[in-house]
């Protein structure tokens, strides 16, 4: 439990600074969002019942809400639902044995 909380806290801090970097430094070079890719990857690689993917999706959405004109929570809830949907699809319908070599989070 504590290990997971620490992992989540670490993830939040890293994501916050990465997000600031993506918004204030990267627009000069690319419009691609590496954080979205990062969150999708976490959700794919994590066990379907894991929570870190959900936390990261929610936190990224929350940051996007705060640093945009959206209502707070719109993207956060949206990303959370997408993350749940992804996990549901992966757990129910996808059986990819060849992904077994990828490190689990």
């Amino acid at each position, binding site marked *: 439990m504590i290990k997971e909380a620490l992992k989540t806290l670490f993830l939040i801090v890293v994501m916050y600074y990465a997000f*600031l970097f993506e*918004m*204030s430094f*990267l627009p000069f070079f690319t419009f691609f969002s590496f954080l979205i890719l990062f969150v999708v990857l976490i959700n794919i690689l994590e066990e379907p*019942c894991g929570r870190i993917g959900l936390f990261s999706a929610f936190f990224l959405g929350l940051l996007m809400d705060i*640093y945009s004109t959206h209502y707070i929570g719109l993207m956060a*809830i949206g990303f*959370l639902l997408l993350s749940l949907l992804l996990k*549901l699809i992966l*757990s129910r319908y996808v059986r990819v044995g060849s992904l077994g070599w990828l490190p689990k989070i």
Partner: protein
Amino acid sequence: MNSVITKKRISVLVFLLVCFLIVNAFLRDGLKNFVYEKSAALQASLWDRGSNDSFAMQNQEELNKKLIEENQKLLSDLAGLQGVREENETLREALGLKLQNDFDLVLGRVISKDVLSDTLLINIGLNDGVKKGFPVILSGKALLGRVVDVYPNYSRVMLITQKNNMIDVEIPDAKSFALSKGEGGLKASLDMFPRDKELKEDSLIITSAMGGNYPAGLLVGKVKNVKKLDNEVYQRADIEKAFDLNTVNNIFVIKIAEIYND
């Protein structure tokens, strides 16, 4: 119910939804302003660094050549305009008209760009007299966009390239009006230009006062890639915008008396 969607998760979702409703109703602007304040210093230095690095990465030789060509063209235009200016002043004097007052400007600086849309965060807000709808320009009267959200010390600016952002514009060369339409991804296009008039490449595009959102005469960009299709009523073209994000640091917000069409 499986391990992904559990009762606990659904109740957390409902709880979050209620929390967000309360936050949006009472704390939204204050909370955003607080978070921006905490990160502003770091973001400003990152923006400066990005701006400098991207400028250094550009092909200096090509840029220099382009600037020299543009400078020569501007000098010849300027020579032509000197005479017009004198004539204009004489006519104004004769008609008893006063020269147009300069804009009431507030200086600010860019802190960040939104990841998913063409909006910028700037470091001036309600406390500096900024209001929703105020136009934002660069030095040289190049139009950047307009304020869409205002917080106590920060504001959010929607760029002219934001998807579906329409601006009434004028093309002085063609003596005609049209619409500038944001395409997203820092691109904009010219639309609704009358088919029967000639639209030349590199013609300047300036704002028109017709729409009510912007003062007339702010530089929007240049006409590029004119498209005159047989089956369309209007001509279209791309717009080479007047600003380059790599060099956007300081901006000016124009305090206008009235916003007609916000």
